[in-house]
Structures are given as structure tokens and as C-alpha cells.
């Protein structure tokens, strides 16, 4: 459990298995069921204080000096645990690490005291040109060593392990000589980083590259996975695009259940980035995730702060 260093910030909930249930108790770092915090919902979150375990925020959205978004962010942080999710680390780029970005990230980490920090196993730009997209790496030895070296630098700079997330991808380079999951798992093992497994991205990439999603799950070490993302996509028949603008699709819920069976209790959240519906709709999706997990692993009892199970 990460303890609060700053007054007036919410700490993570504790969970216990309800006495009737059989199953394995969640690990200490388990945060429960959360949601990606979006600007459209700031007011609603503060006025309705929804019963949700935690929020994820996109780090770059708050790398500003001040103003309304930051004001809301801190007000919401007082009520909920948070994790930070970035899109600009560009861990796989052959450009030098962007130290200005890392310094901004560290400042925000100090402000928010998140439970953890994540970014993507990708590169976003090279030679001073930014694609603002999550571009896939070739999966080979050179890229593996390059990424592990940089993860090490980032973790040393931040003073803590990071989580890396798998992408949705549409191309495979001829330079690749191992599967994405072999590469991903090796990065986690060799660099000491943890894994944010995006269940939707596994589904999307499995469809686009015609592999078995179950092979992906089985290729990832159980103890490395600290967070799940669930999101929607757009299905074009012959291929699928990771649009994050729809509700979670049924095959992704099914894959989520398979992932729970393999990895056990993993902090799970709904990630919607576009076509943002009212807060209640997303909270209902969070409840769906919670119910699937309870059905699969046993019912949990969220405890109030300081409550002890007898």
C-alpha cells in the first residue's frame, strides 16, 4: 500500500473477500475498479461523488501551469486515489529521452502522489518530429535492449518502477523476429517494469494480425500485471481500429474474463477517450467489469478507511 505523503489526498481502498466467498484475496496493490477521468465529467464527479474506487488521469492533460483543469484535478484527488497514464514518454524512440518531459512528469507525480505511473510500449516520434500516435516497435533483440536501457533510465529518474501498456497495432515490421507478447514479457522481466495490459488492444491486435488472444495472455508473466484497461473499438470487418469511442464490446468482456482467470485480481478501469457519454453510462460499464470480476474470482467487500475485518 502506498501511503499518502500529502494531506487531504484520498488513499486507496482496502478490500476483503466477503466471508461467504471462496477465492484468493486481492494483492495489496489492488485498487479496485476505476475510470479514466475526462474533462466533461469534472463537475459531475465533484457534485455526485460517485461510488468508484479510483481514477486514472492522462498526465499530459495536466502539464499546464494552472487554471480550471488543474483546480478540478486537485479537488478530485482529495476524494479518490489516482494513477497517472502518459502518452509521450516515447520509450522506444531512438531520440534521446526527453528530459524536459520527464521533469514535468516528476513535478506532476509530486503534486498528485499517484499509486503508479504508466505509459506505452511504443515510440511516438524521432528526430524532433512527433506523430502524436503510439507507433509499434519491431520486436527484436536490438529494440529489446534499447527499450530496457531506457526503462532503466526512466525508473532511476522517477525513483520507482513504471508500468508499460501494450498497443493496438496495424502493421508488423519485417524486422520483427519474436511475437509482441514475448517481447513485452522480456521487457518487463529485464527492465523490472510492470505491465498494464489493455484487454481491448489485445483483441484489436489479435484480429488485425490474426493471432490467438489466449496465446498473448499465456505469454505474459502472472506477477507482472498490475492494471487492466478496457475500452471500445470500431470493427470494420476485415480489421479493427482502436478508437476508444464506443462501449466495451462483448468479445472484449469475454477476453477480460479469461484474463481474470489467468492473472487474478488486477486493478481494472474503463478508458473512453472520444464520443464521451454521460458519467452514469461509464460508471455502469465499471460496474459491469466489477460484476464480471466478482463472478469469476469471488465477491469482494470494499472497506471504508480504517475498517478492520473481524
Amino acid at each position, binding site marked *: 500500500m502506498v501511503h499518502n505523503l500529502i494531506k487531504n489526498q484520498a488513499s486507496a481502498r482496502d478490500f476483503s473477500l466477503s466471508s461467504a466467498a471462496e477465492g484468493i484475496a486481492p494483492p495489496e496493490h489492488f485498487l479496485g475498479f476505476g475510470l479514466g477521468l475526462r474533462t466533461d465529467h469534472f463537475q459531475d464527479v465533484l457534485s455526485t461523488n460517485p461510488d468508484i474506487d479510483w481514477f486514472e488521469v492522462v498526465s499530459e492533460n495536466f502539464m499546464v*501551469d494552472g*487554471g480550471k483543469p488543474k483546480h478540478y484535478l486537485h479537488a478530485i484527488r482529495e476524494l479518490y486515489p489516482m494513477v497517472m497514464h502518459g502518452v509521450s514518454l516515447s520509450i522506444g524512440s531512438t531520440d534521446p529521452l526527453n528530459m524536459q518531459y520527464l521533469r514535468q512528469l516528476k513535478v506532476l507525480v509530486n503534486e498528485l502522489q499517484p499509486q503508479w505511473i504508466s505509459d506505452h510500449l511504443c515510440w511516438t*516520434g524521432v528526430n524532433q518530429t512527433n*506523430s502524436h500516435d503510439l507507433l509499434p516497435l519491431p520486436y527484436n533483440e536490438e529494440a529489446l535492449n534499447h527499450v530496457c536501457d531506457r526503462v532503466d533510465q526512466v525508473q532511476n529518474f522517477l525513483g520507482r518502477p513504471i508500468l508499460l501498456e501494450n498497443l493496438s497495432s496495424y*502493421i508488423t515490421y*519485417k524486422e520483427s523476429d519474436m511475437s509482441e507478447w514475448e517481447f513485452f514479457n522480456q521487457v518487463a522481466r529485464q527492465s523490472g517494469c510492470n505491465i498494464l495490459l489493455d484487454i481491448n488492444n489485445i483483441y484489436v491486435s489479435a484480429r*488485425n494480425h490474426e493471432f490467438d488472444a489466449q496465446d498473448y495472455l499465456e505469454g505474459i508473466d502472472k506477477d507482472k500485471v498490475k492494471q487492466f484497461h478496457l475500452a471500445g473499438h470500431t470493427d470494420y470487418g476485415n480489421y479493427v481500429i482502436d478508437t476508444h469511442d464506443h462501449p466495451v464490446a462483448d468479445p472484449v468482456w469475454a477476453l477480460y474474463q479469461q484474463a481474470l482467470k489467468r492473472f487474478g485480481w488486477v486493478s481494472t478501469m474503463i478508458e473512453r477517450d472520444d464520443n464521451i457519454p454521460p458519467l452514469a453510462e461509464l460508471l455502469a460499464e465499471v460496474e459491469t467489469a466489477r460484476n464480471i470480476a466478482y463472478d469469476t474470482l469471488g465477491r469482494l467487500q470494499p472497506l471504508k478507511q480504517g475498517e478492520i475485518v473481524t
Partner: protein
Amino acid sequence: MDKLPLASLQQKMINYLVNDDPNVTSTIMKQIKDHGRITRDVRLNIYKNAYQVRLKETIENDHEMLGFFLGDDLFDQMVLGYINAYPSDNTSLRHFADKLPLFLANTPPFKDHPIISELAHFERFLMVAFDAADAALFTRDLLANTPPEQWPDLVFRFHPSVQLAHFHYNSVETWQALKQEQAPEPAKEQPSDWLLWRNKERLTQFRSLPAQEYDLINMILQGASFADLCDFLLQEVSEEQASPLALDYLLKWLDDGILIKQKFIQQ
């Protein structure tokens, strides 16, 4: 088939995203595996499309009124031109279109209508006001707690969100008309000064600055004291009017929330 080093593969992929040259496309195409139900062309194009759409949406979000002013065709022409002229070199999309006013001022056909660049500039001023740093405000209460004998020596500092803008055309009036979904008046030369800032409710606000207030604000920016402001006003109004007028200005600025709390230096 030669396997490329990582750096060279990444350079070819970025070149493909920012460049429409068919040779550049075929260079990266050679490195992509041909497999499954869709072609390499379709696969790569998903990335190219995402790149262009994301940058276009950024400009649309930042420059909504400019979009209404230009209409779809000219707006699309502007977006394509800007993306090609200024590929993003920043990690944050917040700053992607920072050079849009410059682009519009120098690129035909936009440069022939300077109000277009001014509209873009005005919208970027609003963005800066929106997320500039926070700072504790100088308030009526703090002023009341300042001993009267110190007032002449007071110097003022502006909130980080405060900006002074000068426009040569009726750009702000045009922006306001578009915002209210009304047809703007034809563009005309109409020099004016504007004050933009983020108010106490954290909303961006702006108003035009009459010449006298503009001069006073510029004096403050150059370090003038309250006594200096009163002296300046003495040249414009009678002796009895100068001090109350200076106080009126000061109270207005305090109520607007544009001055910040600071330690005053005793002269």
C-alpha cells in the same frame, strides 16, 4: 530483404507520416510484412489517417471561430498547409498550433486577409489565459490593510494569465459575432487594444482598453508606482479628479482579478 537498424526504421516511418511522396511510401512499405486479410497499403494508411485526423482535430478544437470564419474548404486547406509546414516538434498537442497565426500571416491566400491571422492569434491568447499559472490575487481587503502612507509607493504585478493584445482589424468583434452565431461585419481596419485574463471563476475574460487605461497598464509593466500613475493622470484631468480616478482604476483591476498579491518594496 535487409533488416534495418531501429533508428533508420523509425525515420522511414515518420517520413511516411509527414510526407505524401510515393517514393517515401514505398520505402517504408518494403519493411512491412504482407500478411492476413488486409494489404500493407491499408495497414499503413490507418497510421497516416490517424496522424492527419488527430492534428486536424487539435486545430479545430483550438480555433473554433476561425473555422466558422473560413468555412470548411478554406479551413481544410489551412490545416493541410500548416501540418506540412510545421510538423509537431512538441510532446504536447496544446502547443501544436502555436505557429498558426504566423503561418496565416505569411501564406497565401490567407495573408491577403490579415484579419484571419488576427483571429487565430486572439484564440491563442485565450488559450494562454485559460491555463496560465495560478497566483494569489491582490484584493480590496489587502489594499484596505495597507497603511495609506504606503499607497503612493505601491507597485503592481499582473496575474500570469493577463495579456495585452493589439489588433489592426475588427478581429475581436468578428470573433464575438461568430461566437454568438451571428454574421460578422465585413473586415475593416480598426486598431484597438485588448486586455485578456482568467477571472476569479477561472473563466477567460477580455475587454477593450481605452487609450488612457492602456497607457496606465503599460506604465505598470515598466514598474511605475501608484504615485506615478496619479502624476500621469494629472496631465489628463484636473488635480481634484486625478486621485479618485486613479483609485477607480485600481479598484476596477482588483475587482477584475488581474493584480496579484506581493510584498511591496518601500522606496
